[in-house]
């Protein structure tokens, strides 16, 4: 589904990704872990197409297309979804409207007709139930005055409505209490399917107790230095990051 090959990227003149390679197959759930500043957030921003991140070399293929050639909205149309770490507030723009505009632009891309208001409302109410969200949410501005937990739930709600092929979850667990975390994880799990892949970026293993990954990768200084199954995450939780970093350093020197 997604193939990242030797990706280098800079932000404000500083190189953050330094030759990152990663392949994600259909239906797989990957967790990318790593200490602060290792490049986790940069990776997802680059994949989503943020302007201020400059790709200097390497390639990214998504469903057979060169992802780096596409504008952010085109990437979204192809089925790439980013659940933001800090979802932005857009005052005065109604939540429902944003969702509807987003969904209809996806449908248009797929050659489908617009959903009418009734169909749309039925769809969204269904998904809101899943995310345990209050109906009043529909009438509020996008993320306007939302608590941290509400914002994260809103992100997963959008994911549920837009049904992406590849979802990137950027620190989705941060700022969530345990109940909210369960709701969010439940939402994500219900969206797991054979043709949908998920990449979770997280600092802590906590999220992985609720959303079980097939693969775990450790990112450090802009590269993946170790990959394994979920037991790697548990080991990181127990022993911290230092030992992997040390081992990786030794390997590179050897």
């Amino acid at each position: 589904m997604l193939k990242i090959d030797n990706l280098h990227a800079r932000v404000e003149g500083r190189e953050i990704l330094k030759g990152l390679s990663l392949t994600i197959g259909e239906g797989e759930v990957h967790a990318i872990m790593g200490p602060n500043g290792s490049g986790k957030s940069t990776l997802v921003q680059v994949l989503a197409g943020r302007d201020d991140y400059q790709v200097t070399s390497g390639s990214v293929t998504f469903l057979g297309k060169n992802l780096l050639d596409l504008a952010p909205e085109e990437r979204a149309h192809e089925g790439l979804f980013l659940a933001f770490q800090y979802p932005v507030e857009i005052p005065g723009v109604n939540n429902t409207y944003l969702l509807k505009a987003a969904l209809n632009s996806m449908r248009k891309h797929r050659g489908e007709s617009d959903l009418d208001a009734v169909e749309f409302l039925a769809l969204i109410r269904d998904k809101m139930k899943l995310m345990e969200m209050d109906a009043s949410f529909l009438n509020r501005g996008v993320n306007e005055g939302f608590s941290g937990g509400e914002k994260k739930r809103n992100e997963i709600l959008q994911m549920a409505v837009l049904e992406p092929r590849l979802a990137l979850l950027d620190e989705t667990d941060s700022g969530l209490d345990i109940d909210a975390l369960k709701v969010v994880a439940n939402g994500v799990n219900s969206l797991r399917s054979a043709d949908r892949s998920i990449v979770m970026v997280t600092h802590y293993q906590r999220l992985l107790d609720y959303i079980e990954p097939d693969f775990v990768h450790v990112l450090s200084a802009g590269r993946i230095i170790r990959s394994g199954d979920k037991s790697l995450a548990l080991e990181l939780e127990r022993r911290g990051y230092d030992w992997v970093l040390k081992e990786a350093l030794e390997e590179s020197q050897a």
Partner: protein
Amino acid sequence: MASDNPEFEQLVNRGYAHGFVTDIDSDTIPPGLNEDVIRMISAKKKEPEFLLNWRLRAYEHWLTMKEPNWAHLHHTPIDYQAISYFSAPKSRDDAPKSLDEVDPKLLETYEKLGIPLHERARLAGVAVDAVFDSVSVATTFKGKLAKAGVIFCSFSEAVQLHPELIERYLGKVVPYTDNYFATLNSAVFTDGSFVFIPKGVRCPLELSTYFRINAANTGQFERTLIVAEEGSHVSYLEGCTAPMRDENQLHAAVVELIAMDDAEIKYSTVQNWYPGDEEGRGGIYNFVTKRGDCAGRNSKISWTQVETGSAITWKYPSCILRGDNSVGEFYSVAVTNNMQQADTGTKMVHIGKNTSSTIVSKGISAGRAQSSYRGLVQVMAGAEGARNHTQCDSLLMGDKCGAHTFPYIEVKNPSARVEHEATTSKIGEDQLFYCRQRGISEEDAVNMIVNGFCKEVFKELPMEFAVEAQNLLCVSLEGAVG
């Protein structure tokens, strides 16, 4: 911004859709201003003597005045002798008795403007008084209004039919000595609208006027007077357009509102005069004096304006809060692009006890435009318990435009509570990216965000106008505001 957002450029650079000229015979007096011109205007309109004298006093006073230069505006000097002060469609001589008699070309003009007189009026339940150049052409729904006791007619008609009301109220809120442009208007105004809502009446329709400047080298000097007696209520809408012309045209209107005890006047404007071209050639100079007198207890005057047109806008719809517990409101969206300049805002003068005012101003600047908010909140010594809240936000698009804020706050009463907040920022890159990540095109995302930015103002507009306003901002509105 300008370079990395071509969609927006395209959006704001859309052609001016209302720039056509109607080809009809008009009765225009030669350019120039002197006492004879004023006498001629007055004679043409068969005015009573008190009005002619008032005009002449205004003219005499105007000669002693200087054009103001304090606003944050730049323009070449206006040659007041090059303007024609009266232009009426010729067919006016035998005035239409009903819509059927109105010159079909005129009706066509309104069609092009998107205001089909009968259609729109019937469907929306709006009574329209259309002012074409300087005279009122047709007023619809007179019957229904008359039944309710409401007077809604052109100013000229009111002078003939209700001279006592005109004499009583004209110039009471904006005296002929008020300011340069208002004084000029007092001397030469040609028509406008008059509304009188008698005691206890809730006007059954939204009243509406469309203004259009058609003839070349003319100025438009209309005057609107709205009187709401005790306990009455009226909502009045005004829309403006003008054809594309290379030279600048002057529009110097005066609007006076009077609200008695418990009366409420809601005055909404969508102003889309021709803004000039990208180089700043042509366009309307829109120098307007609008003031409301909350004369009575518990009275309320609310101004809502969406200003997208004009080369230069100079207007400060104001409220004099004389009555105890009276309420003044000002909601404004001002969009400037290319070489447009706007210096607009409001004055809230708190005189009565427990008076309150709200100001919400949203300025959007693009291209090389300059947009200024200028406001005065004044709390007089006797205005016990006065309250004001002002929110004043500017959105910048492009690095060659400017956005300025000049709020004056003068408080002489210790029980007053005045709050002013202002922010200026460019359109949020994070917000744009968020929308695009959700698959929404950049153009739509800009529309959505700009519309959201203006939402507080749009929700104050009557429904049909809100639609038009949002269309004017080139925004697909469905659901985004509501």
